[in-house]
C-alpha cells in the first residue's frame, strides 16, 4: 500500500530532516543559515506528507507494492554489491567475465552461446574504448600481479 509507504517515508524523512536541522547548529551562523532553510523546509514538508497519509482519501487507496519481486531484487542488488567488491579486489575484466554470465544465468537465461558472445564482446568493447582510445586505467587484475606485472 503506497499510502503506508508514504507514511513511513514521510516519518523517515521527518526524522532525518530534524537530525540534519539540529546538525546545522554546530555550524557557524553564516554557514548554517542556508542549510537550516533547506532542512527546515524538509521538516515541514515531510510532516505534511506524513500527516496527509491519514486523510480519508489517502487511507483507502490501494497502490502497487514497493517491491514487485523482493527476492529477485535482493539477488540483483547483492550481486551488484559483490561485483563492485570483486572489481576492487580481483580486477575489472575478471569480475565482469564472472558477473555478466552468472547474473544472466541466475535470472534464468539458458542460452550459453548468446551469453558468452555478449560477455566477450562487452569486455572487448570496454578494452577498446577505455584502454586503447582514452588510455584510462581500469581496476587492475589480481592475477597480473602473480606474473609480476
Amino acid at each position, binding site marked *: 500500500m503506497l499510502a503506508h509507504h508514504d507514511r513511513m517515508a514521510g516519518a523517515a524523512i521527518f526524522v532525518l530532516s530534524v537530525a540534519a536541522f539540529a546538525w546545522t547548529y554546530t555550524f557557524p551562523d553564516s554557514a548554517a543559515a542556508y542549510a537550516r532553510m533547506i532542512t527546515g523546509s*524538509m521538516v515541514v514538508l515531510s510532516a505534511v506528507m506524513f500527516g496527509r497519509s491519514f486523510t480519508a482519501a489517502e487511507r483507502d487507496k490501494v497502490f502497487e507494492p514497493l517491491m514487485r519481486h523482493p527476492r*529477485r531484487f535482493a539477488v540483483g542488488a547483492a550481486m551488484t554489491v559483490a561485483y563492485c567488491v570483486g572489481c576492487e579486489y580481483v580486477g575489472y575484466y575478471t569480475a565482469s567475465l564472472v558477473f*555478466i554470465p552468472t547474473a544472466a544465468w541466475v535470472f534464468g537465461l539458458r542460452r550459453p552461446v548468446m551469453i558468452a558472445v555478449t560477455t566477450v564482446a562487452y569486455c572487448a568493447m570496454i578494452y577498446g574504448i577505455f584502454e586503447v582510445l582514452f588510455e584510462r586505467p581500469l581496476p587492475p587484475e589480481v592475477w597480473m600481479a602473480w606474473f609480476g606485472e
Partner: protein
Amino acid sequence: MFEPLIHSFWVTIQPDVMLAITGGVILGILFGAMPGLTATMAIALLIPLTFGMQPLVALGMLAGVHNGASYGGAIPAVLLRIPGTPGAICTTFDGYPMSKQGLARTALWIAVVSSAVGGMVSAISLMLLSPPLARVTLAFGPPEIFWVNVFGLASIAVLLGDDPVKGLLASLFGLLLGCVGIDMVTGHERFTFDILYLVSGLPLLIVLVGLYAMPPAWEMAEEANLTGVTQKDLEFKDSRGIDLPLGELLATWARSCVIGIIIGILPGVGGTAGGFIAYNEVRRASRDPDSFGKGNPMGVACAESANNADNAAAMIPALTLGVPGSGLAALMLGALLIHGLQPGPQLFREAPDIVFGYMWAMFISSGLLIVFGGMMATRLFAQILRLPQVLLMPLIIAITVIGAYTFQNSFFDVYMMLLFGFVGFLMERLKFPIAPTILGLVLGDKAEFNMRTSLLMGQGDPAILFTRPISQAVIVLVVLVLLYPVWRWWQEKRRGRAGEDFRHEPPLGGE
C-alpha cells in the same frame, strides 16, 4: 550574433566532433529502441565516458544521444505498441495500428522524418532565441539570479511529477546534497561525517549516474524478462502503398513543432506533454478526427515532431538562465557543469564556439536521424529488441561501475554511486521525481552563493532580495508555480472530482 554562429559551424563539422555526433546518434537510437532504456539513462551512462573529451566533442555526442533516443523510442512504439521512451507514447496510438495494417515501413519513415524535422526546427529556435535571452539576463544581479534559481527548482519540482510535496522534497534533498562539503565562505565542513572524501562535496557525476542508471537495471532484475522479441515481430515489408498528402504533412509538422518548442521552453513542463498536446491539437484540427487512433499517418507525424521539437527548446532556458525545460535538460545542465561550463550569459561570451557548436550538434544530429534511422538501419537497430533484459541488466551495471570508477580512479566513487543507486530506486518506487534532486544539486551552491552575495550587498538586510523589480517579477512567477497545484485542485473540485484523483492525474511533464 551570426558571426559566432557561423564560426562555430566550422568548428562543429570537424571530424572529431562529427564522429562523436554520429556515434551519439547511433547509441541514442539503440538506447531509445530498447524499452526500459531511456534517453536520460543513456546520457547518464555516457557522461563519464565523455569526461576526458574536449567539451564540444562531448556535448556533440550527448546531443546525438539526445536526438537519437527521442527517435529510437518510435521503433518499438510502431512495431510492438511498446513506447521505447516516454515521449513515444503518442506514437503508439497510430503507429501500431499502421503496423497492423501492413504499413510499418511507412509509419517508421514518417516517424524518422518527423523526428528530424522537429529536431532541426527546435535547434533553429535554440540558435535564434538563446542569444537575446542571454543578453536580457545581463541585467540580473545576485538577488535576481537567486530567485531565478528558486523559480527553476520550484517549477521542476511542482510541474514535473504528479505530487508537488514529493517534488519539493526531492528538490530540497538535492539542495541538501549540494551543502555537503566545505562551506566556501567560512571553511567549515557541513554534513561530511568527518569523511575526507566528502570534504570537497559530492561529485555531481556520481550522484547523477547512481540515481539514473542503477534503478532501471535492478528493475530489469525484478522483471527477469527472458525473451526478446522474435524476428517475426520485426517484419517491415509494407503490404500496400499509401498516399501521403505533403500539404497536410507540412501543416502537421508546423503545428506540432510550434507546440513542442513552446512546451519545451516552459520550465518543468517539457517531456511527454508536448506529444500529447500536439496530438490532441492535430486531431482537433483534422477533417477526419475519428481516424486518429486507427492508423492515421498524421498521428505519427505530430507525435514524433512535437516530441523532438521539445529537445533543443528545453535547453533555451537551461543555457541562458540555468533553468532546464525538462528532466533531460536538467541532466544536460549537469553535463555542462561537469565539463566546466557555467550556464548563463557569460557562457555565450566566454565559450561561444562550444555553446553555438552544441546548438549545431543538435541540428546536425537531427538531420543524421534520416541517414541512421533509414529503413536499413532501423531494421538493424530493431534487432536490439531481441536481446533479453536479463542479459542487459549486468551489462548496464558493469558499464555504470566502470563509469563511476574512471571518474577519479576511486572505488569510493563506485560505492557512493551504489548508495545513490539504492536511493534512486527507493525514490522511483515511492514516486519521488529524480530530476528535481539533480537540479537541486546543480543549482544548490549557485543559489547559496547568490543569496549570500545579495545579503552582503544589502549589508545583512534580507530586504534586498525582495525590493528589486526583476526579483519581484520572478517572485510572482515562483508564487504562481507554487499555487498551480492549488489551482488544479480547485478546478477538479469544481468539476466535482476533488479528492478522487487530484494527486494522481497525469503530470504535465515527464522524465
